[in-house]
């Protein structure tokens, strides 16, 4: 960049650095009073930039509140992945419902409620069906003909199971949270390098003993 910097380069830098749209007036005020370009010159600089960037990935656009550089709208599919926020987590009720369907399929909502002890949220079932993890495989021949829910192949694929037999036996699951809680506790206590060794030791021993006792 030369010693004598062109107005449109300065405007370019300012518009790119700015965290807000800027009007011609605001742009001109960023120049020292001595060498302040007039409105026409700023306007000409903007037109130059709009021309320079017309085929680029960013463009100089005029919004209600001023000029701004903006990513070309065709690039949405790629750029929007940048801020793929970490997806929200499913609720515990969601996971419970899914796991009960997995183990008890085909099952009606009423039966899930009987196991969970609380009503099944309609939204949960809807979400599960939308995600194609469960589907209605039939209707139970009881009054009301409730839908029978079962898991899908997509469900198995997602969890890397070749069949439902790959699900661990329920007897193992019962004490799972205790084992998990203990693991977490151990992990919190342990520091840095030793933690790995300890974690391995813990996972090899304690939970197994517990599971043996439980089964």
């Amino acid at each position, binding site marked *: 960049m030369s010693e004598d910097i062109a107005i449109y380069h300065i405007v370019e830098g300012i518009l790119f650095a700015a965290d807000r749209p800027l009007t011609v007036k605001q742009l001109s005020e960023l120049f020292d009073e001595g060498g302040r370009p007039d409105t026409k010159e700023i306007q000409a600089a903007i037109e130059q930039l709009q021309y320079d960037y017309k085929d680029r990935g960013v463009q100089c656009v005029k919004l209600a509140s001023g000029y701004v550089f903006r990513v070309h709208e065709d690039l949405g599919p790629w*750029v929007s992945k940048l801020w793929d926020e970490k997806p929200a987590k499913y609720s515990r009720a969601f996971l419970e419902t899914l796991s009960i369907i997995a183990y008890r399929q085909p099952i009606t909502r009423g039966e899930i409620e009987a196991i969970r002890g609380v009503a099944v949220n309609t939204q949960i079932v809807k979400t599960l069906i939308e995600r194609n993890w469960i589907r209605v495989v039939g209707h139970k021949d009881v009054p009301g003909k409730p839908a029978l829910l079962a898991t899908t192949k997509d469900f198995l694929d997602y969890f890397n199971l070749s*069949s439902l037999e790959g699900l661990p036996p329920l007897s193992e699951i019962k004490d799972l*949270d205790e084992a998990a809680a203990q693991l977490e506790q151990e992990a919190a206590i342990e520091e840095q390098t030793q933690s790995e060794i300890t974690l391995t030791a813990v996972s090899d021993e304690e939970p197994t003993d517990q599971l043996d006792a439980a089964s």
Partner: protein
Amino acid sequence: MTEQALQDELVDFQVLVKGQPLAELPKDLYIPPDALEVFLETFHGPLDLLLYLIRKHNIDILDIPIAEITNQYIAYVEMMKDMQLELAAEYLVMAATLAEIKSRMLLPRSSESDDEDEIDPRAELIRRLQLYEQFKQAALDLDDLPRVGRDTFDVVSGTPDWEKEKPLPDVDFQEMLLALSQALKRVDMTESHLIEREELTVREAMAYVLDAIKVDDFTDFSKLFRPETGRAGVIVTFLALLELLREQMIELVQAGPFAPIHVRAISDE
């Protein structure tokens, strides 16, 4: 402290240059006392002060006239003391070091000792001064590098309002099992015999059968059995059919003895 007082005091130090008492204050000391305090405070330790003295007098760092520099150094340190500037202990340590070097340089050169083994008493000080000067310069160079917020700026362009695809949440398998385990904890565990593992295969087969058959059309009974699942698979499928029949979810139709059996899901109407 007036300028005159300052000068008097400095004369008391008998600052010597080339063996002669300094008739006048060094040029760099002709600064108003207020500024002097600020000036003295800018020194970042004894090496910095020494370097200043050396540079001010245009002396080659490799050939420091140790006596002269020592005297000037002491004069400055005394001034700092008098102005009750917070004087780091390092300044006094350096004064002692300088004095030691000075006295060693006064010792007559022993003609007996091997000249090559004799190290210039100033060598270590010169090394430290050079090293410090090197980083003093490096700090200035670092300050000159284009840096964010002063010379250069991060660019973050806005985007049109795209319809953002909402990513689906991830589910960890263990997490799901944990949820189930908690659910099971909540219910009477005696009921858990209803969901024994043994049933799983049958239940899976039930789901399979329900999926394979239709409400409005009959499916060939024999087509429901998958030979690739083996004998156990066939049995499980059969058990599943019986279970579905018992739960009135399917109906079986046979036109006559030994005729093909057909299966149909019971309509939900």
